[in-house]
């Protein structure tokens, strides 16, 4: 801003006054602004000051002033999201504010050593602003000038970090905490995530697809990573045999929570009415169960997942653009993912699916849209899968049922 509009430092403080932005701090929720201000005052980074000034100006004029461009590191075609200011003459401090996407570890299992290293390197080269995690699942380092990008990446890379996907590439994967911290995990989400992303890492860094392609790995149908709605290929854990019922624990649960809670919160809420009262315990008609996980979530001690565990592959989930939001549909009802060979077979299937999509999709068409356009029949033929009775949009009732308890 010109000195007339914005008397830089005239108030004796590092940051310029931002009266409109300050309103954001008045509500009941924490505001990013408080963090930005604190960081700017501590590090004296002029870049953050410029960004706050530009945002204030944006709020005043009700216009956004960022535009994209092309910035990359050697050997990579993706991973940096470019932001140049359109009003550099007004606010030169916010001239460039690029974002680096970093891949988080499976299940977001960071260790503090790596995070400390990350923060040190990032504060040296960039703004110091870290977003964990963006909508893409990446750890976002926001605010770096183009001239620092390569050096910052090199230093991060030497400490074991890698850039994530952007553009028409395989995107950064996401997985739930999996067997590391959850009893309900039906397969090793962390291992499958790691192996799949390792296999496709070239496609993460070098965009060459019709459009983006996302994998997400959920250990059970609770789908804590929202894979069904947020990924083209969702790996959702499931089991083939019956839910295990420990009726002694059911009795304990009833003693603690009351019979009315069992009836109202568990039995009546079973979407396929598979649970019946039996004496002082319950009985579950396994062939009616759609693995919605509700009863297991409510009575996690008394009920647990079966022993014959594996995963389902659902494809076509996506949000907005073209045909609007879609949930993934069942493509592979059950597959084991225990041995290395299982995982290799899984990757082989993914290769076929991606190859088919790459050959058949229009520009900017997601996997689900391509399947919908050419029909499921053609897709199955193309990727050499046998049609299966379970490949229906809605098996009986909503299997993705969730209720408060």
């Amino acid at each position, binding site marked *: 801003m010109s000195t007339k509009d914005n008397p830089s430092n005239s108030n004796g403080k590092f940051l310029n006054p931002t009266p409109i932005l300050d309103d954001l701090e008045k509500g009941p929720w924490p505001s990013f602004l408080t963090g930005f201000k604190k960081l700017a005052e501590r590090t004296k980074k002029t870049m953050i000051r410029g960004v706050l000034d530009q945002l204030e100006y944006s709020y005043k004029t009700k216009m956004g002033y960022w535009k*994209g*461009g*092309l910035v*990359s*590191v*050697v*050997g*990579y*075609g*993706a991973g940096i999201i470019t932001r140049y200011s359109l009003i550099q003459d007004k606010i030169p401090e916010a001239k460039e504010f690029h974002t680096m996407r970093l891949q988080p570890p499976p299940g977001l299992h960071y260790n503090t050593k790596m995070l400390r290293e990350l923060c040190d390197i990032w504060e040296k080269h960039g703004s110091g602003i870290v977003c964990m995690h963006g909508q893409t699942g990446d750890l976002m380092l926001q605010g770096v000038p183009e001239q620092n990008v390569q050096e910052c990446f090199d230093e991060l890379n030497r400490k074991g970090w890698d850039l994530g996907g*952007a*553009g*028409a590439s395989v995107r950064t994967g996401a997985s739930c905490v999996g067997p590391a911290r959850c009893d309900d995990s039906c397969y090793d989400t962390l291992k499958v995530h790691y192996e799949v992303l390792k296999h496709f890492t*070239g*496609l993460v860094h*070098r*965009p*060459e*697809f*019709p459009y983006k392609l996302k994998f997400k790995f959920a250990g059970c149908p609770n789908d804590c990573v929202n894979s069904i709605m947020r990924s083209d290929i969702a790996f959702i854990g499931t089991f083939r045999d019956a839910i295990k019922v420990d009726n002694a624990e059911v009795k304990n649960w009833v003693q603690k929570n009351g019979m009315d809670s069992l009836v109202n919160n568990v039995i009546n809420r079973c979407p396929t009415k598979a649970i019946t009262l039996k004496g002082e315990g319950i009985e579950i008609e396994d062939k009616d169960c759609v693995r919605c996980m509700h009863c297991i979530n409510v009575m996690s001690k008394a009920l647990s997942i079966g022993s014959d565990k594996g995963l389902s592959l659902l494809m076509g989930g996506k949000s907005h653009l073209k045909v609007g939001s879609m949930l993934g549909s069942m493509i592979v009802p059950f597959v084991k993912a225990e041995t290395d060979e299982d995982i290799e077979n899984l990757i082989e299937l993914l290769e076929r699916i991606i190859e088919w999509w*790459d050959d058949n999709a229009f*520009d900017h068409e997601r996997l689900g849209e391509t399947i919908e356009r050419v029909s499921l029949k053609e897709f199955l033929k193309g990727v050499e899968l046998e049609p299966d009775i379970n490949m229906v949009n809605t098996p009986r009732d909503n299997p993705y049922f969730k209720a408060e308890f």
Partner: protein
Amino acid sequence: MSFELNGKSYETDEDGYLLDLDLWSEEVAKFLAEKEDIQMDDKHWEIVNFLREYYREYQIAPAIKILVKEIAARNEMQKKDASAFLYDLFPNGPAVQACKIAGLPKPTGCV
């Protein structure tokens, strides 16, 4: 922005892409390549020429997908290898470097 070469002035956009495609010549390409730290050899020229031919025909730079397929077909390699090969030639990405050297306008779209 602009640059001078052999006494002639060339207008570019802020990222160094030629504004007037007709002014492109091999000398200009070599000059732009040097600025990108790229030593042009036959393989580079093949891609640059392909990009120009494609642009002449369709008035748009090819999607990377098409470029990778073309390279795979010409060099009889797998698509995966073709993509790595492309980045060996143009380490900062074909969109950023090859298009600039070929005198094409800056690729748009969500990259």
